[in-house]
């Protein structure tokens, strides 16, 4: 019964919410009407956009030393999560079987675990720093904490379900993933889709105004 619910209606519901929600949010951003910039362009908006998309991957020199923990832990978490999300064998098989119809070469089991370890270590450090630094704590919203905890729970249930042949643990992981997918479009998790457009937008604005940032 529970299995039917989680693998049937709930899965289709969360998939629908995820897809429609993400598309709607992206559309909202794309079709948003901003103020027309009447100033005379001092530089190229497109080159500024492209430059900004890539320059934001490295921290600014002035603050690099102060945010070293966030940068290192942030990269550990995001790269680890990306690797285990798209290259873990169970995920690749799932995507192939239920969503895409085609698959690709997954990582070996040990690399999947190492990626998960990087992701866990990064996420724990980032969340702790968010809680322990007084400024980060003050500017953190409830949404930030919910996303951090939800992501952690999804990853944790996934790692607990690594043992083969324990169906209930897989279902638990599946369920938490559905929760995450439903929550995704309405939270800061949307940055997975918006980080490039948003960097490009800022970069274009900077580029047009001739700001070298």
């Amino acid at each position, binding site marked *: 019964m529970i299995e039917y619910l989680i693998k049937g209606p709930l899965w289709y519901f969360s998939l629908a919410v995820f897809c429609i929600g993400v598309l709607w949010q992206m559309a909202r951003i794309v079709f948003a009407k901003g103020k027309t910039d009447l100033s005379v362009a001092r530089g190229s908006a497109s080159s500024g956009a492209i430059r900004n998309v890539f320059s934001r991957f490295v921290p600014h020199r002035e603050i690099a030393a102060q945010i070293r*923990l966030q940068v290192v832990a942030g990269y550990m978490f995001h790269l680890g999560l990306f690797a285990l999300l798209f290259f873990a064998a169970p995920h690749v098989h799932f995507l192939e079987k239920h969503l895409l119809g085609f698959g690709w070469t997954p990582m070996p089991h040990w690399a999947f675990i190492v990626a998960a370890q990087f992701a866990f270590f990064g996420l724990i450090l980032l969340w702790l720093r968010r809680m322990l630094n007084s400024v980060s704590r003050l500017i953190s919203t409830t949404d930030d904490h919910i996303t951090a905890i939800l992501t952690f729970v999804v990853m944790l249930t996934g790692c607990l379900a690594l043992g083969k042949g324990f169906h*209930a643990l897989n279902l638990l992981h599946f369920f938490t993933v559905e929760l995450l997918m439903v929550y995704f479009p309405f939270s800061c998790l949307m940055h997975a889709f918006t980080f490039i457009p948003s960097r490009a937008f800022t970069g274009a604005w900077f580029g047009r105004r001739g700001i070298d940032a």
Partner: protein
Amino acid sequence: MLDSFRSSILYDVLKLTSTLLLVFMLTAPATAGPGPPKRPDFPQGVSTTNPGNDLWREVRQRDLPVTGTSQVKGVDSGVLINVEGDRWARFRIDNPVRHAPTLLVAVVLVLLAFYVLRGKVGIEGGLSGRMVFRFTDYERSLHWCLAIVFLFLAITGLILLLGRTLMIPLFGHHLFSLIASASKEGHNLFGPIFLVSLLLMLVSFARRNIYEKGDLTWLLKGGGIVGKGHVSGGFFNMGEKSWYWLVILVGLAISISGLILVFPNFGQGRVIMMVSNVVHVFGAIVLIAVSIGHMYLGSIGTEGSSEGMKSGYVDINWAEAHHDRWAKTCHENDEILSAEEFARLQGNPIDSGDATTGAAND
């Protein structure tokens, strides 16, 4: 099976051999010694023992470890009888499985009794509200990261060690098997994170934890918890330093033995695995038992001590009570913040001069 093996085969063989030897000895002359038998008509082969004897002595590895060969490739596949396995299994049941719960419950009870009898270890003059900086964001993040990973590993490890006796009666085999599988996979995944946190901890805190001159006095005075009066301490006092080195050394032992256990793909023999398991379990139980004490002292046991790992700042009165030498340098360098300043740094600016509540807020 071994017993019945012995009773059915070896026993029979020995019985037969000894009976026949007895018959031979009764018929042989009394002078028959190690030399050749005097009666040439008696068969020469009699004094040879049953070849099965030698074989079984080797199989049971009575004299020295014997490894045979096998077409089947695998870990220790050439060893016919693994003599240590049963010993390890019994040792594990008789020691950690039997006594770990008692030990951990005893630690909790002792602390509880201590709390009831002695109460919270206070600070003379109470908290002043004036704060001094102690731990950076990174140091605190690292501490709590190690703490979270340690707790997770402790809980999952204890489930695997004690679950069979304590949890199967409650949950039944199938549900417990789910819990145990989750614990095992989680334990194996988080173990290396513990090691990395531990090594970062070693790098960050080692220099401040080197024992120095005043530390022996601290130990002789019982750390200020048992008796009354000030005990001298630097940035870390003797007790904290000892806990730190215990965590580092025992933690490394646990981590290394854990890595040996978690990588069976390198084909370590069973004896190495069993030794690692014993080291792992014993180290873990020691660390868990002492960590309960650390958690007690860091939270309800001592007034003002949790603040250092929460905001990174500690009350100057707390510093003077527990770390007077460090507090003195803080005074000299004029590093002490007023309650208002601290509240502002923590993002709780005090509006109406209610200084104490503002400072007490986290």
